[in-house]
């Protein structure tokens, strides 16, 4: 049976969700962004929301590959779960690394840290997302974006 075409901005349609296993490849990551952002578009999210979610996902995946998977084979995939409905976007980024303790990251906005080249990913995720939490041993990042 043919599925009805979803309408852009139709809030009445049900949630869309998916689970993707992503290797550290720009093609795979861009394809994942397209899946999430297309679902957001169908649920009436505007460009500013797409910007926020794409940036937060980029930071989460960069951390997962660079830190979580630092000592793992380069092809080891990171798991991305997403769920989009009319109210928000729920994201889970899970790596297979030893875990991360967010309190160990120095505040990058302090005067003495402003010129450090790294350490801003978590700050950006927290700025754009309603919820950012590390679960499990610190290898499972849960993020929630709420539609403004």
């Amino acid at each position, binding site marked *: 049976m043919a599925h009805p075409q979803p309408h852009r901005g139709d809030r009445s349609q049900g949630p869309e969700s998916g689970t993707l296993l992503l290797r550290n490849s720009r093609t795979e990551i861009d394809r994942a962004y397209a899946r999430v952002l297309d679902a957001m578009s169908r649920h009436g999210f505007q460009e500013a929301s797409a910007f926020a979610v794409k*940036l937060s996902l980029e930071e989460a995946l960069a951390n997962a590959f660079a830190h979580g998977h630092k000592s793992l084979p380069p092809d080891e995939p990171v798991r991305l779960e997403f769920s989009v409905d009319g109210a928000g976007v729920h994201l889970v980024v899970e790596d297979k690394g030893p875990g991360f303790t967010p309190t160990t990251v120095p505040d990058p*906005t302090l005067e003495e840290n402003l010129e450090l080249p790294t350490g801003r990913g978590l700050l*950006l995720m927290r700025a754009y997302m309603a919820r950012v939490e590390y679960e499990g041993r610190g290898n499972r990042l849960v993020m929630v974006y709420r539609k403004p």
Partner: protein
Amino acid sequence: MAQVSSRLRVRKDNDVTQVEFVDRNILDEANIQQIREEIERLVEGAPRPKLLISFANVDHLSSAALGALITINNKVKSRDGQLRLANIDPQIYEVFKITKLDRIFQIHESTDRAMASFA
């Protein structure tokens, strides 16, 4: 080694080197490293470099790109040079505000204003 195509458009306007990005997304770690190295080579080629980086074509950038800009800024300063940023989309400017990097960088609305700001 294979030749990698440039990720930048570079032009000289008097003693100022103007740089624009080819990519709309400055996210990918390998691209960012290439961009940083290309700009660093431009800075190293001048005794007191005057560098203007335009973000006119840029829709997205990540914290890794911010890190590269900081490294470039430090290099420019170490050579007694001047760095200006211009044409930053409001959404990306917000990223500079959140990270407080608008305090580190001299950011201008347009290329003309940035050009006029060089000492």
